């Protein structure tokens, strides 16, 4: 096992229906601390690949080592725990749980996972969340209902939740596609800033190739995926 690899997929085959594989990847390695841009046409299986990396999905064949753990050998609850404590995830939109306030949403990963709670710099989880939200310019919205935020604001809150408790891997699935260009710029800057600070590996999925140059590495899924070959 490569000690520096955050993500290492080997001979992985996955299909929602086992007979028709959607992904067949002989090797995919993402080094720790790298910022990776993953792209490909709609429906090519980008989100599905993220599902395999996070352990929500289990490949039919192959090995999937993420942050030092062989996901295929872990039990389902162990995979969930690994995901929750070591990975931050940002969706395209609607990242926040509607019944919780902004602050509660951000604090949630630390409330659930001891590992993330241990890695906070401030003395309490709430203080940590407030600090993050303040840096994101969200200090006026701490106790607001998430439905009252604009999409750009929601995505910024999502960054705070993804990076609180310093997870080693941050995954973003088309997080900017519902933002206008200004918000997108702000979002990207903030995301990079936080990931650099925590030295987290960043896997960023997007259609938007204009963002591509900012990343250390670009991966076209169709080139890695051998189902079509």
């Amino acid at each position, binding site marked *: 096992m490569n000690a520096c690899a955050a993500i290492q997929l080997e001979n992985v085959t996955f299909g929602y229906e086992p007979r028709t594989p959607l992904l067949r990847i002989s090797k995919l390695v993402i080094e720790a601390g790298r910022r990776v841009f993953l792209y490909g046409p709609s429906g090519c299986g980008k989100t599905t690949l993220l599902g395999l990396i996070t352990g*929500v999905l289990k490949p039919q064949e192959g090995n999937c080592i993420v942050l030092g753990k062989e996901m295929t050998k872990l039990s389902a*609850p162990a995979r969930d725990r690994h*995901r929750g404590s070591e990975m931050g995830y940002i969706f395209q939109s609607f990242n926040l749980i509607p019944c919780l306030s902004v602050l509660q949403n951000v604090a949630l990963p630390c409330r659930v996972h001891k590992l993330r709670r241990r890695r906070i710099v401030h003395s309490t989880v709430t203080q940590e969340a407030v600090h993050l939200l303040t840096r994101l310019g969200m200090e006026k919205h701490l106790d607001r209902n998430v439905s009252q935020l604009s999409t750009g604001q929601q995505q910024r809150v999502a960054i705070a939740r993804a990076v609180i408790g310093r997870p080693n891997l941050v995954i973003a699935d088309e997080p900017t596609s519902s933002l206008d260009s200004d918000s997108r710029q702000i979002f990207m800057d903030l995301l990079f800033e936080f990931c650099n600070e925590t030295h987290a590996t960043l896997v960023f999925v997007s259609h938007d190739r204009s963002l591509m140059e900012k990343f250390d590495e670009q991966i076209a899924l169709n080139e890695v995926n051998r189902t079509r070959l």
Partner: protein
Amino acid sequence: MTILRLACASLRSRMFTTCLTVFSIALSVMLLVGVDRIQQGAQSGFEGTLSQTDLVVGARGGSLPLLLYSVFHLGTASNEISYDSYLHFAGHPAVQWVIPLSMGDSYHGFRVVATDNNFYEHYRYRGGHSLVFAEGAQPEGIFDAVLGNAAAAQLHLRVGQKMILSHGLEGSFLQHTADPFTVTGILAHTSTPVDRAIYITLWGDEAMHLGWESGAPPLKPIPESEIRQSDLHIKTISAFLVRTKSRMSALFLQREINTYKPEPLTAIIPAQALEDLWSVLSAADVALSLVSGAVLVVGLLAMLIALYTALNERRREIAILRALGFHIRQIFALFVLESTLISILGVVFGVAGAYLLFFVVGASVENRYGIPLTMTGLSVRVACYTIAVVVAGAVLGLIPAIRAYHNSLADGLTAQ
């Protein structure tokens, strides 16, 4: 713990539907528990009205009517019994004490009961409590009267005031104007029909009816001052209560009274007669419980519908929770917990509501109809109801939970 907090937050965010479903469950629990409590309360109220009395004796007739009119002042005596028969059994060697009762008059809707001082001395209720005077003392003269607590309060009568009784029950226009009674005592509160009665002496009852033998007022009423006790001859009473020296002798005495040759009499054991009453009432109790049960089913179904229809909107929420590292079984637990919380809230409010209902209804039933109701604690039956409702709520919660589980399994992180 986090799951519990999430469930609470989720319920709170859907305040309106949560309140509605909690309300509908609470309503049915309230009915279910309320019916049970009122039935139990009536039972213990009735049973508590009379204690240490082994036999109730009256004219030949049904045991339940005898018990109802003599002790609970409900209905009327079919026939009188002769005073001689009463004296015969009062002097019986097996008898410890007797309390004679003579009914037939009323005062502003309150029953007038003629008795003697044995009543104040020996009458026991709720397992050995004896009558206590809140004011004044027991009657000494012919035209003295003692008022039950509620009667005194509602009639605004104090010790020393006079009252004119009316002849017969409810709404009679014939009045014993010639013979006003004086209040000499007011009894303390007992929560039994005693509270709503007016007690006079047998002599007083006889005296005010002097010349009324035909059933109509005498043409020339005899004024109070001219009546002497030695002139009076008590001829009949309505019933009497008997305490025997031993439980065994009660059974023998009952047979002896029932076969008493000079006059057809009925002697009943109060507890047995009450059993008859409960068997009559249990059918109504069952019917009411069935209705409440049906309401409960509707309430639980309303909850199921509310949770189930919210499922689709919550697919995204579930995907977020999964991304945050929640296990799929925790998602399942979240949904079961929500329905369980709703039913627990429903039960808590329902039981509280039932007691409130009991408090309100109980007081007015007692005041208006004189049916004694006692507040009783949580019974095994109520405990069973509450547990059953919570379990039913949790089980129904399985349906949306299973659906959420499958949704989440299929969606993974893709639900957008």
